Each structure stands twice: as C-alpha cells, then as structure tokens.
C-alpha cells in the first residue's frame, strides 16, 4: 500500500499537465473571483479566520474541477500501459494497492490546490501581519476542504469505470456546477446540502458566522439542508468519508468481478 502510494504520488505530481491546468485556473481565480482581495463584501478582510474562510470558499468553487479532471484517467492507467500483468503477479494485495493508489494520486493532485490555498494564507500573513492566519488556514483546509476532496477524489477516481475519461470529465464539470456551485433556488440541486463537497457546513457550522440572510429562500431537497451547527458540520465530514468509502468499495468489487 505504501509502495503504491509513494509511486503513484510521484508519478502524478510529475505530470506537467497537472501544473499547467491548475496554473490557468488559479489565474482565473485571482483575476475574476476576488482571490486577490478576499473581499466578497461579507466579512472584514482584516479578520484572519474569516478571510481564510473566504479563501477556502473561492478555492472550492473552481479548483476541485481541475482536481477531478486530473484524477479521471488514473484508474485504468495500468491496463492502458499494460503493466497490470506485472503488478498483479506480485504478492501485494489488490485492495491495498488500490487504496494506496487512490491515496497517492489524490494527495498529489491536491498539492497544487494546497499550494494555491496556503500560498494565499502566507501572502495574507505578510500583508496583514497576522500570523494566526496560517493556523486558521490549516484548520479550515483540514476540516472544510479535505473531506470534500476525499469524496470528490473517490468519485473522479472511479469515474472511468462507467465512462471514458474524456466523457467523464465533461460530466464531472457539469456535476460540479450543478451539485456544488449554483444557488439551491435555481433548480433541484445538491448544492448547499450535506452531499455538496464545498465544505460550507464546516465553515458556517464550526468556523465563521453565517453571512446574514444566507440560504433562506426555500428550495427543493431542503430536507438535505439542515441548519449550520457544529453537529451538522461533523455530519458533513462523516457523509463525505462514508461516500468515499462506498465508492471505493464499489471500485474494488468491480475489479474482483472482472478478474477472470
């Protein structure tokens, strides 16, 4: 498991396209989405906890799309490269290898995202002179971004089981906007539910105050939108991890069924 984790991490991290695509999207984020100012008109930018919350909110609007798309071709890679024969003939367990690969590939794909986030936090420390922002950044990343990445990573990792990677990517982008970004009142959507991967349950339930008037309009699927409390924040983290585990078990099940 550790071997697969290490090598899959290294191979994914060294893909030039990973850095290029992330670079382009970060550029969009900085120029269009106020990642430079961190001022969405809700909180005081000078409050480090709130500012790091806003930074997280902006990061999870677009970067998970890159994260998912870069993950989408990893699962069938051994078969495509025809190394599966060699790997399967080793005494290493297939489940362990699968989990190691999932963890390694997801971790590598999250590195540029983490750099974008913690880079902004560092910049904040220098500009605002508040070192506590780094601590808040770490907490916000771990509690509100990471669980979402764990789930979305499993989803994108498993995607090519059903669809060719290119088709999956298109659908994944559509899913991301539909299920995470658009307002709940627009159409029936998973946005702002506990199944949405953006981490707002943790941000508003545990970390920062809820913006005034936020999420009041009633919408379809509102039963999936309990209020923002510490309990629902933990619930969301649990849901993300459970979904990831479920998706990965399906992948393993699929693999053992097609072993013949």
């Amino acid at each position, binding site marked *: 498991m550790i071997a697969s984790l290490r090598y899959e991490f290294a191979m994914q991290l060294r893909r030039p396209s990973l850095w290029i695509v992330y670079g382009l999207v970060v550029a969009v984020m900085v120029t269009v989405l106020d990642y430079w100012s961190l001022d969405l008109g809700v909180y005081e930018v000078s409050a480090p906890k709130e500012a790091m919350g806003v930074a997280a909110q902006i990061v999870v609007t677009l970067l998970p799309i890159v994260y998912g798309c870069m993950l989408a071709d990893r699962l069938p890679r051994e078969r495509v490269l025809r190394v599966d*024969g060699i790997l399967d003939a080793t005494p290493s367990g297939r489940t362990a290898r699968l989990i190691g690969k999932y963890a390694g590939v997801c971790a590598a794909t999250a590195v540029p995202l983490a750099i974008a986030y913690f880079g902004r936090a560092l910049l904040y420390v220098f500009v605002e002179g508040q070192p506590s922002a780094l601590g808040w950044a770490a907490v916000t990343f771990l509690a509100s971004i990471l669980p979402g990445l764990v789930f979305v990573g499993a989803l994108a990792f498993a995607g090519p089981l059903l669809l060719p990677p290119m088709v999956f990517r298109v659908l994944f982008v559509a899913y991301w906007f539909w299920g995470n970004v658009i307002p709940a009142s627009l159409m029936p959507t998973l946005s702002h539910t506990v199944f949405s991967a953006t981490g707002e349950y943790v941000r508003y339930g545990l970390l920062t105050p809820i913006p005034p008037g936020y999420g009041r309009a009633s919408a379809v699927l509102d039963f999936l939108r309990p209020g923002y409390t510490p309990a629902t924040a933990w619930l969301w983290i649990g849901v993300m991890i459970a979904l990831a585990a479920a998706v990965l078990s399906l992948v393993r099940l699929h693999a053992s069924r097609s072993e013949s």
Partner: protein
Amino acid sequence: MRIDVSDLTKTYKGGARALDGLSLVVPTGMYGLLGANGAGKTTFMRILAGLLKPTSGRVVIGGHDLATAEGRLAVRRTLGYLPQDLGVYPDLSARRFLDYIALLKGLHSRSARRRRIAELLEVVALSDVADRRLKGFSGGMLRRVGIAQALLADPRLLIVDEPTTGLDPEERIRFRTLLSQLAGDRTVLLSTHIVDDVAQTCRSLAVLGHGRLAFQGTVSELVSQAHRQVWTVTTSGPAPAAGRVVSALPEGAGMRYRVVSAAPPDPYARPVEPTLEDGYLALMDGRAP
C-alpha cells in the same frame, strides 16, 4: 518446483476456448512450451501466474493449489513473471520502476533492494541507462527491464512468455543462456516461437495445439518424430510437391531444398538428420489431417 496441471480448460467470455482439457506435469528445471499463434500458451501462463481463473481443471504448483487464495498468494511469493505484452510506466527510470516492483514483491530493506537492482541491471546490461526514463527505451531494452523485474525476488518459479522476441541475436543468446543457468533448482517455463531457443536450453518440452497437449517429452523425442522424414533435394526444376519445404538455398544453377515429408519427395532425395524444428513441423503435419 513441480507444476501439476490436470484437465485444465479455459473458455473466454465470448466463447473462445483457449485451453481444452490440458493435463501436463512440468518438472524442476528449464521447460519449453511451443505452439502456433493462438495455441493457448499465453492463456496457460497467465493461469499459472494466477492472473486468470481457469474455467475448470486443477493446477498445483509446488504443492500449492491455485484454486485457493492462499495457494495463489504462496505461488506469487515465489514467482517471476514476464508477460508477453509487457508494459512499463514511461515516466519512471528503469531503476525506479524496478524499485517499485521490488517493493510490491516485498523487498522492504532499502539497501538490499538497491543492491539487488544494481546487480540485475548489470545482468541485463542496462547499468548505463538505468536512470533514464523508460519512455526512451527500445523494444529490446524494455524486454530486458522486464526480465530484470521478473528476477527481482529471486523466484523459484520463472514464467517467461516469449522473452526473446525483439532481442537481437547476441542478446537473445545471452538471455537464453542466462535462463538456463538460472534453471538449476528452479523451474523456468519458457514459451516461444523460436524452436532453436528451446533446442539450445531445454531438456524437455511440451507442444500445445488448439489448447490441447500435442506433445510432451524430451527434446530428442520430439526430434525423433521427424526420424527418416527429412530430406534434401537439389534440383533446377520446380520445388518438390510433396511434404513441407523447410528451407531453400540457391546452389549452382538450381536450388537445394530441405523437405519434411513421410515419403521421399523426389527419387533423388537424400535423407538427412532431423533438427528440433523438423520434429516440431513433422508433429504439426502429422496432426493436421
């Protein structure tokens, strides 16, 4: 390590029957596996390596039954496998690729791993390019990487599926010699289309035809299949009509043909000593009708 195969059948999804009631005993040592394209050699080897489940039949390797998960694991621990359609990670260097496979094979000590990899890179003559990416390797170089990875964990059982295709003659001879040196107290199962590779390295062999056992025995027994069936004919006329022409060499104004045929293909044909290839062809011809 002895391999006992009984009544092994493999039918692929879609109905292709690749193995059809194959029963075979492979003793310790170097063992050749011959057969035409599509005869079932790769299917057989993938089953032995635990990559493919047979439709029916039983395989016991060194006392481990492949039908059980423990049996397959025990075999994998002592297995070196070189697949026919070998692939690698193009973005890793040869050394890093071998390191990854060594880790998967359970060589956990870093220093032991390093030593073993350096040793094997030397054996397959890749030390100079060990730190280059595999992306730039030629087909023959990749094969040698494949051979090195198969040998990593000092396997008791070595399954190599057409390892010499794509190697130049020198490299091919070096490699088959290496295999037979390795054999000793190990079992090396070598499949190939190059009959000479078997003739030069194996004492016994099996021939597969359409998923069944066409022959099992020693090299000299297969050679004797062509006993008094190999002829040379020198003629300036047309090629002999009877039998199978094995070679044709220009000689003076005419041609000298080597022919495998039960009866003399020509009144002036001279009998000659058969080779393993002649034996193989005689066997195939004898089965064809």
